[in-house]
């Protein structure tokens, strides 16, 4: 019934796409496990290493260690990378190389189910990796406060936003060569989004540009939550990420339809 009343949003059949991804990744368990080690690598390399070189910082009236300052930024980065790699590379593979989606569309599932199924998958993956990252933060003493638990839904939102952007972007990828362009965009976002240092260090004009970056918005949101510093602007950051996610999903669904069922 749901399919007939709400055809644009997919149906419970979308869960089969989630099941498909789980089946495929189970045979690649090493890749799945590596996602859980990633937070340790991030936190240990940048957090521990730089913590001794960089002194404590003042953030919103709190004085915190550099490791505590940088950990939410790393969480945001990890959410972005995970989401982008999974959607851009793997979805491109399913869409244009293995044609898995073409096969799926000859079954009762339709395009909206496929798109929604990929979103379920992105959310579940983000939930698992986000939780393991936050647990590592707590264990290493990098959590600013007990409010760090709120970083979990915020990290999932971050993943959703980047998954939506990635899903939309991958439909424009023509060949493996185009992935260089993806790196070309992703790297500056990673380096300039004020994930390693406060945005106040930038000249004013650059700070305004950086504010456009969803990674900056996410890192700032996560940082506030981790430290338990709540500001109204954080609602704006959430809204920004939600809007980007919705726009990305809309574009992705249209492009999927155009490519798969012309």
């Amino acid at each position, binding site marked *: 019934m749901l*399919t007939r009343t709400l055809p644009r949003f997919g149906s419970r*059949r979308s869960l*089969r796409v989630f*099941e*498909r991804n789980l*089946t*495929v990744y189970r*045979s*690649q368990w090493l890749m799945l496990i590596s996602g859980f080690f990633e937070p340790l690598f991030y936190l240990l390399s940048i957090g521990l290493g730089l913590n001794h070189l960089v002194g404590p910082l003042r953030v919103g009236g709190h004085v915190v260690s550099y490791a505590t300052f940088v950990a939410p930024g790393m969480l945001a980065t990890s959410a972005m990378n995970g989401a982008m790699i999974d959607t851009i590379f793997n979805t491109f593979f399913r869409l244009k190389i*293995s*044609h*898995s989606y*073409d*096969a*799926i*569309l*000859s*079954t*009762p*599932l*339709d395009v909206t189910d496929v798109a929604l199924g990929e979103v379920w998958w992105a959310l579940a993956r983000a939930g698992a990796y986000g939780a393991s990252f936050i647990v590592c933060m707590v264990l290493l003493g990098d959590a600013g406060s007990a409010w760090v638990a709120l970083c979990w839904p915020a990290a999932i939102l971050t993943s959703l936003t980047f998954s939506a952007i990635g899903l939309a972007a991958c439909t424009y990828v023509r060949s493996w060569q185009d992935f260089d362009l993806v790196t070309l965009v992703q790297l500056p976002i990673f380096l300039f989004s004020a994930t390693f240092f406060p945005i106040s260090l930038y000249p004013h004009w650059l700070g305004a540009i950086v504010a456009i970056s969803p990674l900056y918005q996410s890192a700032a949101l996560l940082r506030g939550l981790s430290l338990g510093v709540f500001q109204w602007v954080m609602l704006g950051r959430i809204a920004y990420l939600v809007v980007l996610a919705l726009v990305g999903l809309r574009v992705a669904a249209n492009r999927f339809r155009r490519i798969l*069922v*012309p």
Partner: protein
Amino acid sequence: MTEPILQARDLVKRFGEFNAVDGVSFSVDPGESFGFLGPNGAGKTSTMRMISAVSQPTAGSLSVFGLDPRTHGPEIRGRIGVVPQEDTLELELSVRLNLEMFGRYFDIPRAILRERAIDLLAFTQLSERADDRVEDLSGGMKRRLTIARALINQPEILILDEPTTGLDPQARHLLWDRLYRLKREGVTLIITTHYMDEAEQLCDRLVVMDHGTIVASGTPRELITHHSTREVVELRFNTDSHDGYHDRLAPFAQRLEVLPDRVLLYVDEGDETLRRIHEHQITPMSALVRRSSLEDVFLRLTGRTLVD
């Protein structure tokens, strides 16, 4: 009178300004095997995609199991099997998992899928490769696995888009044999092909498509009777150009075709024609009398010019 399982009237598929399918009508009875013949770009695949409720018709009416694909897509797709032109297998999964995972899209319980997978792998002679990765299979094996996969939901209609393109003769015959068996079990087969022998082997009835329209339809024998003669005489002469023989040979045949390397005479009695040609002191380097085939019909209807 049984109701047709599939019926199309004035079906159109338009991409921008281009009519890929330009008003075709046909109907298929349950248990029939029905073929779509035509050169590349004739509109066969676009027609298949509309029948399988994947792409929406631009105009015209289409009914599958008495249902409209525009409104009952999921229901129709649940009852058909599709063997696409290009293999779309999950390269990262094993042969067995390809079948079991695909069955899940139809909401079939895992326990039933496990049993069906075993049966289908035996049916397509892939039991020994059940746990191998799909990447390691040969082209023929992948094709058989694609057919096994299309059968996982026990479809009432099986749609095959150029099922044997690119296969060696052994693999083709094995596939044909399996398709015969399915037909005997009552599965309706819809086949597109540009192999005439395949169409003659498999199809009860067929249509010939060209430029998005149906240019002829009937049983293979009817098509040959209507659009060709009973026999064809192929003559080769020791010459650089066969053009000069057109006028001399024309009186002997109902229709005559001069190709760069030979002359084709469409006649009812090949041996008799050949005897009369010899009586008239015309001596070809080689002569062959053969029965007319669908290929002759096909070339007559769609021309000899390369279409891609």
